[in-house]
Structures are given as structure tokens and as C-alpha cells.
């Protein structure tokens, strides 16, 4: 075997074919940005044969999300036997794939949506649901509360039926609290009480390195924005003007950053990096028992259930004001749907107390429907064997603030990530960082 590659082919032909290959490689790279991808359609996801109307519905999540939605659709089938649903679970890259479906004229009739709701609504892609709720005699505000309705409304139009909604709560490790002799977190805590507790819960090893932290947060809007809102600040004011570098916001973020850089009671980006983690991944450390407190949503209840820790949840502390982020999702109807009426009817059922019950009984999430939350199926579910205090999710429901889910929401988050990167590491002052974010956001919204 003494052949070298290309023996026998003329150099010219070889060069030409390499050039062609080069071009093809370059092109496929570009094309992959525009090629449409089919969402993964799990087998047997259809909720039965079509009789009159078949609707397509896209949801994100995992198998459990799909199972719960199938349960709910089975209930819907009893109430609305003429409507069949082809349920598509899109486990990865949901936003990109749904965007591609819309771009390709293959929009689903019903889509699960959350933070990007106004990307779609501002581009005329969603149907106002208020008339449909009115036609069914359902009042959205009394069903879901003003906060949820506000989150999914602009200019008096309701772009999504609130479906899942839970306030952020404090997850805390009881053992670490007991060992440090600190009282468990509560809604009565103010910032100083929180900071003090975090300090007491922070331990250093013999080399002076922190081995246990009081609090873990990082680059995620429910963490940094909540400091602003609790301090009377905001991101966009009533007129939609950015107020990122206001005195309230600077003071608020300084408070958190002092915990990171001075007290060292909250994880710094360097601390996370030492654990091989991104700035803002407290979950693994909480599970390892190295972190006393973290703030996140309902989903950690199920992931911590079998972690072998003694933990519980509590409502969030307060600052000058009470402000709590919430993690919600809604179901929206595409404006291009040929079966808007049927789709909206289905949503009214799915977001009713009866339609939301499987969310509670399965322990999947907090239902958005207030009657479903008040129901014993949520408050005392059979899966809650470790007596987790589920009332924490509802206790602060009235303090939920609506983050600025404007069409430029992704760019705004990126502006915070970029502008604050050097703040958390102490290379730049809080004021300079927020000034930079303010300038970027002004540019985005002008």
C-alpha cells in the first residue's frame, strides 16, 4: 500500500474538487442557520382520532410535561369531544423551532409561551383571547389574578391564557441552618436579616477558602432584577423608558455585590468557575450541601425530593418593598390558525380549575388558575410525603412583579449579562456596569 491520496487524479482536478468541497462546507454552515428543523414528534402523542377538528399544540419540557398535558387533554376530550389535539413536545431549542414553524407558515394552532410572548404578539402572530373568554363567560382576572393577566397582556389584549405560575421561593438546607443556629428564612426577613443569616451560614476551610456559602445566585433576571424591584427601582418605567442605572438600582445591586465580594457569603463567578460551573448555577452546590440558600422555582421540588437532604421552602424576603419574581407559562393561539374558535375553547377548558388539576396532582408545577391553587389537590397532594411547605408558592402571589417582557426582552437580558460581567468579578463598579446596560438598552428601545 504505497498509494498516497489522490494518486492518478490530475492536480487541477484535485484542486477543483477541493475548491468545490470548500464552497460546499462554507455553504452548509450558512444554510444550517436557515434550514427548517422538524420538531421531535413523540410517538402516540395524538390525543385520538380527528372527528371534526384537529389542532396542533407545541409544548416544551420533558416526558412528565407531556404526560400531564396528555392527561389534561383527555379531560378536555370529555368536555369537548369534537376537538382532537396533535400534541408535539419540543424538548430542545423550543423557541428556535417554534420560530421556524411560524417562519415556514406551519405555525401550531396552540403554543406554550412565556417570556417571548410579546415577540409574537408585537408581530401580529397571536390571537387576542379576551373575546373568547368573554364568550365562555369566564373572567380572566378573577380566574388567574391581575398579575398573571398583566404578564400576558398588552393594550388590553390577552395574548396567552395563563397556564402555569409559581412565585420564586427560597430553598434552604435545614441542616446547615440548624448547625449555624440561624432561624429559618421567612417573608419577614428584610435585607439586613438576609445578609446577616447568609454571613453566619458561610464557612471557610483551614486555607481560608470558602467551603460553604450562605447564598448562591448569579446572572439570571429573577435574581438581579428582584433586588431592583425590592428597592423601589425598575427596569422600564411606566412609559417604557429604561431606568436601569437609577440610584435605587445601583444601591440594590451594590448590596448583592457586597455579599459576593466583601462578605463572600454569596457565590462569585470565580467560586462557580472553581466548581466547573457557570455564574448562576447554584443547584448542584445546593444538592451537595455546600449551599444554604438559593432562590428558584417550583421545579426544584421534584428534583430535590430524592436528594437525601433535609430541606424546605419559604417565601422570599423583602426589601423596602415586597417584590417576588414568578415563573409562568401561558397557552396562546396563533393568529394564522384556521381553527381559532376551537383552539380558544380548548384553552378556556385547559386553564379552568378542572383542566388544571393534573398539574397539581402530578406535582409538576403551580397551576395558574387560583381555584386550582386553592384546591386540596395542590395544597395537600399525595406526592408531598416530606411535608414541603407548599403554601410558600401562594403566600407571596400578591407581591409578584411583572418583568418587562417587551419584544426586545432577549436583548435586554444580554445587555445585563454583558454589562455586569465585570461587575460581579469586581473589575468594574456597579454604577459603571449599570450605566453601560442603560446605554445599551436605550439603544435597543429607541
Amino acid at each position: 500500500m504505497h498509494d498516497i491520496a489522490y494518486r492518478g487524479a490530475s492536480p487541477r482536478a484535485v484542486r477543483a474538487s477541493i475548491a468545490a468541497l470548500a464552497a460546499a462546507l462554507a455553504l452548509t454552515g450558512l444554510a444550517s442557520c436557515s434550514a427548517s428543523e422538524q420538531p421531535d414528534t413523540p410517538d402516540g402523542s395524538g390525543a385520538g382520532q380527528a372527528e371534526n377538528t384537529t389542532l396542533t399544540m407545541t409544548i416544551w419540557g420533558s416526558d412528565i410535561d407531556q404526560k400531564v398535558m396528555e392527561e389534561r387533554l383527555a379531560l378536555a376530550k370529555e368536555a369537548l369531544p369534537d376537538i382532537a389535539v396533535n400534541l408535539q413536545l419540543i424538548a430542545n431549542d423550543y423557541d428556535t423551532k417554534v420560530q421556524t414553524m411560524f417562519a415556514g407558515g406551519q405555525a401550531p394552532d396552540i403554543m406554550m409561551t412565556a417570556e417571548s410572548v410579546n415577540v409574537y404578539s408585537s408581530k401580529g402572530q397571536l390571537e387576542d383571547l379576551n373575546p373568547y373568554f368573554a364568550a365562555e363567560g369566564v373572567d380572566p382576572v378573577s380566574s388567574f389574578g391581575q398579575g398573571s393577566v398583566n404578564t400576558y397582556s398588552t393594550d388590553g389584549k390577552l395574548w396567552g391564557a395563563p397556564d402555569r405560575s409559581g412565585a420564586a421561593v427560597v430553598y434552604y438546607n435545614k441542616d446547615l441552618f440548624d448547625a449555624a443556629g440561624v432561624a429559618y428564612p421567612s417573608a419577614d426577613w428584610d435585607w439586613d436579616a438576609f445578609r446577616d443569616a447568609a454571613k453566619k451560614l458561610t464557612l471557610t476551610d483551614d486555607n481560608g477558602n470558602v467551603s460553604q456559602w450562605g447564598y448562591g445566585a448569579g446572572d439570571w433576571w429573577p435574581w438581579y432584577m428582584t433586588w431592583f424591584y425590592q428597592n423601589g427601582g425598575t427596569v422600564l418605567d411606566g412609559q417604557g423608558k429604561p431606568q436601569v442605572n437609577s440610584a435605587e438600582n445601583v444601591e440594590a445591586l451594590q448590596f448583592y455585590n457586597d455579599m459576593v465580594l466583601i462578605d463572600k457569603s454569596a457565590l462569585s463567578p470565580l467560586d462557580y468557575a472553581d466548581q466547573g460551573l457557570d455564574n448562576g448555577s447554584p443547584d448542584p452546590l445546593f444538592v451537595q450541601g455546600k449551599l444554604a440558600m438559593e432562590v428558584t422555582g417550583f421545579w426544584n421540588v421534584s428534583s430535590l425530593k430524592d436528594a437525601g437532604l433535609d430541606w424546605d421552602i419559604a417565601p422570599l424576603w423583602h426589601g423596602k418593598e415586597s417584590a417576588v419574581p414568578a415563573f409562568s407559562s401561558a397557552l396562546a393561539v396563533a393568529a394564522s390558525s384556521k381553527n381559532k374558535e376551537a383552539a380558544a375553547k380548548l384553552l378556556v377548558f385547559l386553564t379552568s380549575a378542572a383542566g388544571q388539576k393534573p398539574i397539581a396532582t402530578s406535582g409538576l408545577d403551580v397551576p395558574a388558575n387560583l381555584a386550582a391553587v386553592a384546591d386540596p389537590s395542590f395544597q395537600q397532594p399525595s406526592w408531598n410525603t416530606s411535608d414541603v411547605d407548599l403554601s410558600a408558592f401562594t403566600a407571596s402571589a400578591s407581591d409578584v412583579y411583572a418583568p418587562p417582557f417587551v419584544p426586545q426582552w432577549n436583548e435586554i437580558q444580554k445587555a445585563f449579562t454583558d454589562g455586569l460581567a465585570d461587575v460581579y468579578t469586581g473589575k468594574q463598579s456597579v454604577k459603571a456596569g449599570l450605566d453601560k446596560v442603560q446605554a445599551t438598552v436605550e439603544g435597543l428601545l429607541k
Partner: protein
Amino acid sequence: MNTAAAARERAAKGPFEAAKRRRFAWLSSRLGRRETLLFYAFISPWIIGFVVFTAIPMISSAYLSLTDWDSFQTPNFVGLANYVKIFSQDPLFWPALGHTLYFAAISVPLSLLIALFLANLLAKPFRGAKFFRTVIYIPALVPLVAAAMIFRWLLAPRSGPINGFLALFGVEGPAWLLDANWIIPAVILLALWQVGAGTILLIAALQGVPPEMYEAAELDGASRTRQFWNISVPLVTPILFFNLITGMISGFQVFSQVYVLTNGTSGPDNASLMLVPYVYDNAFRYYDMGYASALAWVLFAIVMVFTAIVIRSSNAWVFYETEVRS
């Protein structure tokens, strides 16, 4: 003979005569036709694939780059506005281009050198050669997300083995992923780790070098180093050339390595922003498909120019055995 006259002649000879001629022509070129048909039959999967998945998307993206398409509403034609914005108003385009050139200029030649070095070691028969060849190729099989997780640990500022190694020499290692000056070198490290695929090609090429050439050189007293530079390297230049072209193109299109190492932030503060992630962000996070298309075309032009330069230069340094140099 003009066509009208030919038509008249055919008409005069009648349909029977014409049919006979056609039949004869078909018989004479039956083999040729068969070959032509087979050619198209065999190439059709590629042609169809090219048209559907490359040509049509390319043409559409060229058109979209002249519009303000947000991927939902009807696109409005805006002329060259997107291109003007790229070159004169976008504060991130030039940094992104600079970072991409930096990454490609370091990672591509380094990968080639390392691959050549490793291939030269592994091409020779020795005990355990197969084992080491497998080991070298394993990183190419590890999913990138898993590799990135390993790299986060390797690059950890205070506890990572890389900085631990540097500390042996009294060097205080940087906080790689958090430092604007070190994030791109970190991405380059991750890219270099995956050098196995190029190495395998070079091993095959080196094993293809006729041993009588080495024997002849040895008789003439050429040292091992001399043999490497004057026999091995010239004879594998076609593979080096291939690796250079493909490496350069994928270097310009670097996406996954930065995306997984920086968790999609291109951070800190855009210090590792590369062109393809920027295209992706504009298209799928900021819903500016028209602008993203324009960026993609600018990238395409840049890649084409660099590829053309390298192909042009290949006359000077790529050696083909069948080639006769005057």
C-alpha cells in the same frame, strides 16, 4: 443549413424516414445515453440535496439580506441598509470579526502542526501503536457538551489542573473563562484538543509514503530530520492542504466551542463573540433574520476570499506525485 430548410427536407422525406434516422441515432449512442442516464441517476441524490438544502436556502438568504424580515411578518425590501449597518453602525461586528480571525489564525496552524507532529509519531509501527491512535482519536468522539464540562474543570481558576500545572513554575494562571484576555485562548485549547480527526488523515498519508524513498535517502546519508522535512512533509502536503482548507473554513465558522464554553453568552462582555454565534443570536434570539442573513453573506465572502488565497498559494507548496514541475 438553416432550420427552416432542414424542416422542409424532413417533411419531404416523410415521417418514416425521420423515424428510421432517430432509431439509428439511438442505436449508435445507446451506450453513451445509458451512461448519461446512469450518471444523472447516481448524482441525483446529491443534486437534489444541493438544490433543496443549499441552493434554495442560499438564494432566499441573499434576498432576505436585503430585507428587514423578522421571520414572522412580510419582509420589507430595505436595499443595502443591512450591509451599511454591518460596516458602519454595528458596534459588535468588527470585534466579532477580529475575534474570529484571532481564533482561526491561531487554532488552524497550531492544529495542523500538532496533527503533523502526532501523526509522525504514530505512523511508525511500534508496540501499542493502535492503542495510541485510538486514544488520539477519542476526543473527536466525545460530545462537545461533555468536553466543555471537562474543560470547565480543567480551566477552573483556583482548583483546575491547568492552573495547578502553571503554578509549578510560579505562574499564576488566569481565570480563563472569566477573563476577556484569556477566553479565546481557552476556546483555542478546546479546539486543539479535538485534533484527532486531522491526525488520522495524516497518519494514513504518512503511511502511504513509499518506503524506498526513505531507503534511498538513508543510503545517501540523510538524517531522520532531513527525511522528515524533505520526504514526508512534501508527500503529505495534499493532506495538509486539505486539512488547512477544511480547518480554516470550520475555524471561521466556530460556533459550538464558544457556545458551550460561555453558555451562549459569548462573554465576558462579548470578549469571545464570534461571527457565527452572532449570526445565530441575531436570527434566533433577536428575531432579525434579515440582518442575520446579511451577516452570513459577509462571512461567506470573507471565507471565500481566504479560501481562494490559500488555493492560489497551493501551487507553491502542495506537491502532487503526478505533477511535472518545469
